């Protein structure tokens, strides 16, 4: 299967401190690929490094073309949508303004987004900072879906959300993945199991395993060894493990 994103020997640092040692992986041109790993192993930093939001070295190719020397806004303009950890909506802008800011193309996908998140249409004039966490996450995902992207980078979209909202966000990502490949950092293994076809496991700033997501998550020993958590137990609890914080 052809890859939409090829990452080779990516190394990232924040304030001179290395946060990603050397990761190499590819993201298939279809479906959802999960990035898994324990707490603080560099999953979020990997996504931010790909986007150029933190200092990075190494090679990153989008659809075969190098993007590692480009500034963030140019990478995004090439067709990379980003849903950051902790939503990062603009609190003092309305929902409509948050979405309008994300529009890059002549015909933004407003109807598609409105169908996915009808609640946002009703709340278009509400300040984003007054929305619930789930609604803010919908704004964050909706911003990334406004354009016809080549790839979406989605960072912990279900973090801290109520189970019902987790399902809604997962539904939206599943729908979105029909038209655009997604690289997903996610701690909720039930969501990963439902959505992801492939998985990349990072540990200590390096890729330690690549394979089908189910192969990892259905093998309790492998899950325990790579992620330090039992997928079954997490499913029983219904949420991401409390010992896991964001990386």
């Amino acid at each position: 299967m052809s890859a939409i994103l090829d990452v080779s020997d990516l190394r990232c640092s924040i304030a001179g401190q290395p946060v990603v040692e050397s990761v190499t992986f590819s993201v298939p041109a279809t479906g959802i690929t999960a990035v898994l790993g324990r707490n603080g192993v560099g999953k979020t930093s990997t996504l931010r490094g790909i986007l150029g939001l933190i200092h990075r070295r190494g090679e990153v190719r989008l659809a075969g073309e190098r993007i590692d020397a480009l500034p963030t806004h140019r990478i995004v303009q090439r067709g990379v949508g980003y849903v950051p950890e902790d939503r990062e909506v603009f609190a003092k802008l309305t929902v409509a303004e948050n979405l309008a800011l994300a529009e890059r193309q002549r015909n933004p996908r407003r109807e598609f987004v409105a169908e996915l998140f009808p609640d946002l249409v009703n709340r278009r004039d509400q300040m984003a900072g007054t929305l619930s966490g789930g609604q803010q996450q919908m704004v964050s995902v909706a911003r990334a879906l406004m354009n016809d992207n080549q790839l979406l980078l989605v960072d912990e979209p279900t973090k801290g959300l109520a189970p019902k909202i987790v399902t809604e966000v997962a539904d939206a990502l599943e729908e979105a993945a029909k038209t655009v490949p997604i690289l997903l950092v996610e701690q909720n293994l039930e969501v990963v199991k439902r959505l992801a076809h492939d998985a990349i496991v990072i540990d200590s700033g390096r890729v330690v395993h690549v394979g089908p997501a189910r192969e990892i998550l259905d093998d309790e020993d492998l899950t325990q060894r790579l992620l330090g958590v039992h997928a079954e137990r997490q499913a029983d609890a219904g949420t991401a493990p409390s010992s896991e914080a964001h990386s």
Partner: protein
Amino acid sequence: MSTIILTLVTGVGLGALYFLVASGLSLIYGLMHVLNFAHGAFLTLSAFLGWMVAQALGTESWWSFLVSILVGAAVGAVFATLTELVLIRPLYERHIEQVLVTVGLSFAAVALFEGVWGTDAIPISGPPWLKETTEILGARIPNVYWILMLAAGLVLAALVLFLKKTRYGMIIRAGVENRSMVTALGIDVRRSFTLVFAIGGAAAGIGGVLAMHYSTFVSAHLGSTLLIFAFIVTVVGGLGSLTGAAVASVLVAVLQQFANFYLGGTGDFIVVILLAVVLLVRPSGLLGRKA
């Protein structure tokens, strides 16, 4: 009663002048995290060139007064834009160096202005109406204060409309909140840096020409004097908050005028005390975001 009215209205008028300088400072800091010490230089150059234009057109006519204000705004905008493009942009994300370069520019600019226009203050004149007074509830208010208030009101309205109704305004508001997320939406935030500098420079330019009429002279140090109070206003109002700058401008200037009149000319001292109290009690300023 008439003294209170006089002090209050002249305080609001002086606050209007502070706002014209502080609005740009606040927007620039809010978006770029740069304390722009060169802002006073934008103001001074605008005043000098505005005065030259007014002299050429005839200082007493309203037409030349209006043109000199427009020239001041244009000069301020061009000077600020060049400063951003040539000095600030190459130091992108290096905030300390950016601040230092603006300090250097402010010193160099004053020396240059002294070299060109001399070290003495140059007396200026304008439409005669500006020197007359208007009686309000027994208080005779110098007319220049009405012009200051009108100009600040128009600039505030224009800035609010721009920030609320245009895409660039939206980008600037979003950038003040979270600059990196703006770039992560595919927007080149550096363009809005230049724009904010230009807008701030234009407002300072208008302020420069009006400050000249308020002081009835123009000198190489016109901007430096006002810049100190503009910084105080910006900090008291909350760095990055336009509304905060507007409220603090009036608050600081009214307090300053009342202290000058009723507390034996201690206006400047009281203003510094106010700054200290705000920094101790509410470091983010009256309407600023908490760190």
